[in-house]
């Protein structure tokens, strides 16, 4: 297992320690997970897969819970609007 994993967050490359969740990668990249329907910024609240506040699009699949998704090499993550 490599020590570092490279992925893309909103088009920008980032390298994170292996085993890092996408939620943490988003935070390290300084990116919001999503914007609520009323236009408010959203990110991880519970951190354990219950609140669904940290949803992001991963490899084109919308509404993935970033706190439950480990980063994988070459992954493409996008904030949801």
């Amino acid at each position, binding site marked *: 297992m490599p020590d570092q994993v490279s992925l893309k967050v909103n088009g920008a490359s980032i390298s994170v320690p292996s085993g890092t969740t996408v939620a943490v990668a988003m935070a390290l990249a300084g990116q919001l997970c999503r914007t609520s*329907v009323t236009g408010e910024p959203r990110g991880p609240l519970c951190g354990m897969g219950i609140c669904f506040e940290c949803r992001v699009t991963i490899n084109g699949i919308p*509404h993935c819970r970033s706190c439950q998704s480990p980063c994988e090499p070459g992954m493409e993550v996008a904030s949801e609007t």
Partner: protein
Amino acid sequence: MANTTYDVVIVGAGIVGAACADEFARRGLRVAVVDRDVVGSGATAAGMGHIVVMDDSEAQFALTRYSQQLWQALRNELPAEVEYDQCGTIWVAADEEEMAEVRRKHDFYADRGVPTEILDAKRLKQSEPNLRDGLQGGLLVPEDAVLYPPCAARFLMQRAQQRGAELVLGASLSALGKGRVLLSDGLQLTAEIIVNAAGAWSAELTPGIDVKKRKGHLVITDRYPAFLRHQLVELGYLKSAHSVASDSVAFNVQPRRTGQILIGSSRQFGAEHKEVDQQMIVRMLQRAQEYMPALGQLSAIRIWTGFRAATPDKLPLIGPWPGDPSLFLATGHEGLGITTSLATARILVDQITGANPEIPIEPYLPSRASKEHAHA
């Protein structure tokens, strides 16, 4: 309550009861509505919310078309939360036999002034790219719409209240008819006219009404804007939903204003419990994925059930109940009550006030069922 005598007491605050209350109040009658739960909590909350024309019979067509036009006239007054969306329906044909049905439906509607458009396989795929390949085509009914039923019921009830109607919620009934409604806390409401609009529970309140509970399941997804553009219904629905005896599922999906996808439908007789039946959900979602494989990749956020009020001839009961001159029925709308609520209210109130109904009312009169029994 200050006064317990009214012109009309309506039992049931679903969309039908709410529409009736609004219409009685509009024509100046003093109305009370009682419900054991909250507004729109029964079949209304288990309805997909389609505002559609249907052609199973001339009577069904007349009622759905009249009501659809009433919704169109009301459209600009509906608050945003009602989520009225004229997305149109596409009846999806899987084989040549169903394409023949598409052409029959097209001619039926053309004869009656309802615009529709026949889609070939290519146009169907362009209209709904997430449908599977190999379907034969479909019929687009562009004036069909969808809305969010509980908020529509609440809107109608609030307008009735603004027009003077009184609403009593959380009230269980111990008796109904003979000019009064007796609540289990001892309160008695008297009125010349009692309307049983209790949907799937109407037969429990008025024994002898031929209305049976038919259970349905619904699934709603997270938000996936542009995944789906029209309401889609399989024409195989004709083969499944019309069976009055057995449990059935059919492909019926709707795009909601929120970007969510509402997935139906299922029909079960004899199920008395409200819990989700895993087997029915699996069958329903498998059927949906046969038409739209990509549905399998979406997240569902809620599954729920409800009971619809089914009659043997699939037409509602609207009018006087033989044997009790004070009692009128507005029930038995099964899966079309959201569409037909407004027309039901019009023709019920027309009968009671002596106004001229815009469509013939005979097919919906409760006495038709009594006649059938007499011949049986």
